[in-house]
């Protein structure tokens, strides 16, 4: 969206191609205002986590021990000191963030949107509870009984979900724990593609505008590459017993 010019502003804590390098499309817009300037509102990771947590909790701010003696509060006036009502200690606060839409990718949900995930959870739960609308994209649509069999695994309740999209491989080039791996080749290739506006545009034409949807995109990637992303074996969690109490 940054490369395609549809994003006007980024609220963020890290801008990179993880494990590879920088993000050239963003750099072009920030360093050269090409094709247009990009507005930035910058925090640290914990600051963003705090913002989502405040948004999800309907709190007017979230306090954290960060930002001391750094330049971040100088360039972002929304990072503000707050004094403790106990003693004279001062920490920093960040304001709530309530996204218009939060999109979450998960392993499974039922038709009501009750969603379970395992692996790294990031701040997907907080971002979902903070949002006006929530879209859940899942690898598998499962029966309600599957969800209710393991209530501690539920991360997002259907109560706050507006749409469930069943889209296997929907997280590519990223991964889904237990389903497929991170496609590192994609991230490495992106380094070269994204260095130049023209090659970036050509890639968008071919891989975004040029395909009808996720299924065609995966087909275009090719069976060999797709299959190489499957885990080399299974690592079952094992089952626990909740017990019947009648």
């Amino acid at each position, binding site marked *: 969206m940054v490369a395609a010019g549809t994003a006007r502003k980024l609220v963020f804590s890290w801008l990179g191609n993880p494990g590879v390098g920088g993000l050239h499309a963003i750099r072009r817009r920030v360093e050269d205002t090409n094709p247009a300037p990009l507005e930035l509102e910058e925090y*640290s990771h914990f600051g963003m986590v705090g913002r989502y947590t405040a948004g999800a909790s309907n709190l007017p701010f979230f306090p954290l021990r960060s930002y001391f003696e750094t330049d971040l509060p100088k360039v972002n006036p929304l990072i503000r000191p707050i004094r403790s009502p106990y003693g004279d200690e001062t920490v920093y606060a960040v304001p709530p963030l309530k996204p218009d839409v939060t999109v979450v990718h998960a392993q499974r949900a039922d038709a009501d949107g009750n969603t379970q995930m395992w692996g790294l959870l990031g701040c997907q739960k907080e971002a979902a509870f903070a949002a006006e609308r929530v879209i859940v994209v899942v690898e598998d649509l499962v029966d309600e009984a599957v969800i209710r069999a393991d209530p501690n695994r539920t991360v997002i309740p259907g109560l706050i979900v507006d749409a469930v999209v069943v889209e296997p491989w929907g997280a590519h080039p990223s991964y889904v724990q237990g389903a497929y791996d991170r496609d590192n080749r994609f991230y490495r290739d992106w380094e070269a593609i994204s260095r130049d506006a023209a090659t970036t545009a050509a890639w968008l034409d071919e891989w975004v505008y040029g395909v009808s949807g996720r299924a065609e995109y995966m087909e275009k990637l090719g069976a060999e590459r797709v299959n190489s992303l499957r885990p080399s074996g299974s690592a079952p969690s094992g089952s626990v017993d909740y017990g019947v109490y009648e």
Partner: protein
Amino acid sequence: MSESRRDGPATGGSTPADSGATPPGFTRSEMMIVAAARELAGQRVCFVGVGLPNIAVNLARLTVAPELELVYESGAFGAKPARLPLSIGDPTIVTGATAAVSMFELFSFYLQGGLVDVGFLGAAQIDRFGNINSTVIGDYEHPKTRLPGSGGACEIAINARQVFVIMRQSRRSFVDRIDFRTSPGNLGGAEAAARTRREEGWLGSGPSVVVTDLGIYHFDETGEMRLDSIHPGATLEQVRDTIGWQPKVADPLPATLAPTSEELRLIREELDPEGAYTK
């Protein structure tokens, strides 16, 4: 940091080589990663940054620090990755880990709660007092280079008990004045930094080691970096040419022990067979 480890190179190392060439058998990047890994001996909980810290910490786990608990800011504790993850968001971090938790929990309870012994960071710029910039080169509003930004580096520097840094040194990275302070180090010097940490209630005591492709630095009583070990093949001239201030140098200056064949095997065969980190 364990004293035996720290003294190791001084007693067991050779004197600095005169030549600036990399000795045969290993690259400067390999030496840097090995030296960084060895510094982790005796540590228990390490918060692993993206990039070079990732490979150094995983090498440490396989060598000097088998008990090391790896914390990834993406939400894993006690990770035992079966391969070196390219990114800190990688499924191999979770499979077989002790715990997979939300980022809220990781940053609140583990990091801010004071459970992290070492925060291991990379950086784009560092100054003599270990203050770090990973945000912009140039002016913030109109940067020459827009860098990735803090990620967790800001709060890691403040809340981890101590901070290790790994980065290649150059005139652009070791600078007299960093362009933006993303993560605080010893601020303007040890005394003021200690007072600030006390007054503001930081848990951390700041940076304690910087490992580069040329040598190993610790921080002296003034809070300034001092070259305490020089890597085989590196010269003091090279060191001075790639630092934007007059660096302090230990006297005598020991040479870092060269990588062992086992350390090299682990890097080349197990951790980074594609050479992503060691080119």
